[in-house]
């Protein structure tokens, strides 16, 4: 239900976009030269953190352009949006953001509505 600032079109509703999974997973330059394991890690394995996540989005119902975003997966806060090919912002840039709504643990959900004493 959040909005995303498309670097080409501006702020739009999330429903116009599709998520493309983890960003900056480069396709191996020479696939024939790497092991089955390395290749399958590229094809199948993606990070799934609770917290800061670098991911790809595409403005499907808009300009159809792909871009990168940095999102806090526990709050859905989009911290930064940048174009394909641009240098990703360093992680330390986002250290000051709120981690989770109610200070719940780093792993797992936390539907806490009352502040823990």
């Amino acid at each position: 239900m959040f909005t995303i600032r498309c670097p080409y079109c501006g702020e739009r509703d999330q429903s116009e976009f599709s998520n493309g999974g983890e960003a900056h997973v480069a396709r191996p330059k020479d696939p024939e030269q790497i092991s089955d394991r390395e290749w399958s890690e590229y094809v199948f394995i993606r990070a799934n953190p609770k917290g800061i996540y670098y991911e790809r989005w595409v403005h499907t119902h808009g300009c159809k352009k792909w871009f990168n975003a940095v999102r806090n997966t526990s709050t859905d806060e989009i911290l930064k949006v940048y174009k394909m090919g641009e240098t990703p912002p360093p992680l330390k840039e986002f250290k000051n953001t709120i981690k989770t709504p109610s200070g719940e643990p780093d792993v797992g959900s936390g539907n806490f509505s009352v502040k823990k004493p």
Partner: protein
Amino acid sequence: MTESKIYFKFDGKKYAGNEGDTIAAALLRNNVRLIGRSFKYHRPRGIYTCGIEEPNALVQIINEHNEPNVRATVKKIYEGMIVKSQNRWPSLKTDLGSINNILSPIFSAGFYYKTFMGPKGFWKNVYEPLIRRTAGLGKPPKEFKSKSIHQHHNVEVIIVGGGLSGLLAARKFAGTNYDVLLVEREDALGGVLKNADKIKSINDQPTDEWLEKTERLIRNSNNIKTLKNTLVTTYNFSDHLIALEDKNVGKPQDNEKPELVLHKIRTNHTILANGHIERFITFRNNDLPGVMLAASFEKYLNRYGVVPDESPVVFTNNSSTYSLLKSLTDLGHKPKAYIDIRDQKNIEKETVELLEKFSIPFYPKSEIEGCEGQKEVKKVSIRTKKNQITKIKTSMLCVSGGFNPDIHLFTQSKGLLKWDKDHLTFKPDRIFQKTITLGSVSGNFSYEKLLVEVEKKLSEFEGLNELEVKFELNGPEKFQIKELWETKHEKKSLWSKSFIDLQNDVTTKDLRQAVNEGFNRIEHLKRFTTNSMGTDQGKISSINALGIVSKILKKDISEVGTTTYRPPYSPVNFSAIAGRSTYEFYDPERKTPLHSWHVKQNAVFENVGQWKRPWYFKKSEDETMHQSVQREAEQVRKTAGILDGSTLGKIEIKGKDALTFVNLMYTNSFTKMKPKTGRYALMLGEDGMVKDDGIVCKINDQHFIVTTTTGNAASVLAHMEEYAQTEWPNLNVYMNSITEQFATFNLSGPKSRVIMSRVFNDIDFSNDQFPFMSFDNFKYLDTEIRILRASFTGELGYEIYVPPSHALKLWQKFFIYSRDFDLVPYGTETMHLLRAEKGYIIVGQDTDGTVTPIDLHLNWMIGKKKKDFIGKRSLTRSDIVRENRKQLVGLVPIDKTLGIEEGQHVIEHKDLSLPIKDPVDMLGHVTSSYFSPNLNHSVAMALIRSGKRKIGSRLFVSTENLNTIAVEVVEPNFIDPKNERMML
């Protein structure tokens, strides 16, 4: 005062109400107290509240498509409205289901989970139908065509609630540069100012006058938009709110205009001023008709001018009931008794003075122990301060157990709560979004402090108006309360119950039992007992439940915590959520330029994605599908047939690096391919699995046109775009969908060359000039068409690409020029049959995302010399080169008269043993199966383990009635294995 009367029916009887009355107000006006029967025990239930929090008075509106579970306390009456009570049989007064009340010991918490365990089949055939008949609320509505719409808003500030706090905030914003939306759920602004007589005057004017002035000020300011009859149901992340507006308040449904509007609101700041909800106190038989919340009683007096009862008993644990006493005595009525659990010395002097002045019987430090009565309250039982039981005759009992800030929306926004020891309730603590809470929702129950709060909390906004407001109050300023969640039972009988959730019939005994059984976490306890899981979400009772549970667990209430509040705040009609996306607007229908022709030729259509495609053409009324398909398929191989292939996806690829790009996207090699030729090509995912197939046509190295399967047109283009933009942005390549720029005809059959030469008499279709898989553009009338020689049937065939405007005429021309050949139009089913005879795959039918080109024996399509293409590396992964993968084979029944069913299992042995004890080893399954009219027996394709090695052997296929039929495993190519027919 002469007011026009409005007549409506409740359970068949006609009643009169006033304009603006809710169903509940009108029924109370007519002294009707019994409204419905309860969910589980079928106990008589009445009107408990005067608003959205109502747990009991749910009714069915017969003349509005049988709309169920409508709150009688919210829905306004109109002339001719037909209302029915719910969950009773045969009638409201004598409900046979109330036997459940006596059987209640077996209906305790977790009853369903524990009882309906077996025997097998009983749930579906016995228990469920029985439960569905006796438990539950209203009956499902009738189907109707909703006219509800969605509306979007983008504002700077939304004010939720048009009560006193909301209006003060609106006054601050009136006429400023802020774009403000004010949302009020009732049909009038004012909130508590209209419900109760707590404020004598504002700025020395009567409150009504101040309200009118404020409303005028808001109306005249051009920056505030007001929505009335609109309930904010949802407060999502990123300041997104959803509100439901009822457009038909006090009116019958309009056939032209939308009845509901779902507002989707984006805002920068959310001001929650949505007030509070009164809670009840649990005592014996606290559910009887005649028990009502005190502030609701007061609302009936002040807002609707209805006196539900002239001499009720009042039971309270707090100071708010003073204004009820005052309102009643001002009207000349005298409450029968006033029962307060507080010590006399703690009760505010205003109340005591009033009680003395009107000599109302006063019971300080006392409590209601229970109520007596069969269909409604007849007597109340009081435990006095000396611990003695006194009974008083009365027909109504007003209860106040304190107030809860209406924190539902605040917690939806992920704000955090904390326990307020003074007011004994949860109140907002830390905000998570840009939320401001004002008034009682923030836990501020003082009018004096309200002004300070508004000024302070709105100080972050610049250029707001100064507020000049002075209140003169009726009664005590300070809100005082003493903790009381339930009172002790005196009498133990099956009829006596203390309810904690009125709608779901949960008693305090159920809570105790659940804790005893180990459900000591509030979220588990809620699910086990179904406490606060009704349509009212326990609005008047959930905090009481927490209070009782904290006492049982001997824990602090803030340690027990609340359950999670989830949207929506109150039920939202599905018709509002659907909006205009219903019936023909649910999903667009795509029709080919030849659609009208197909309709005239009695085509039966099939949905392929959003497309309507002819499935088969009925030659006569009584021709069955099987007959049509067999006739069409036979005719194609005999003379010729023509298929509307316009739905095929077409993508144009251009750019300096188009060749490199196409080489990367598809498995085949296109480098040495000559211009103006096409090639059947496979597209893989990076995992090596077949994603799509189609024909790649090369115009030159910088210009390609590719076709995709009908259903994958959009996803293939998206897949190409993704790689072009993200992996290989250095490649100069552009893609565009041209699916709808061309209609496509697939002409197929031994006579197709003759027909083509007749239709296009200036083109040479000889094998030398127009070999297989070549194409060219030709001038046709005032336009250009493209003809490709290709085949998906194994017959000589041509594909004609023509602009849609010329499509119908050209299509008809084919039939005119081929009368002597009986050219047959054929549909998708025949196309599937014909290709199956040739063993050609359909992506998505013979493949399912786990099938590689090697599994399909399509190794010849893999450009092995190419350095790279998507999925290439995966084709050498150990799992992909494994020998015993499922591979495509053909199946032919040994007994040629038998048919093979699609989706059936392929097994090694004839016998199907008992499945559970000795599972049959499944080799794979049948992906396609057709009866071939040209071979006169069934042909099937299947994906089976080590299929390649099994060719020539005999296997078995299961059938619907658990038999097996013997089949021979063959190469998947049944007709013309040397492909001589299409090279003709």
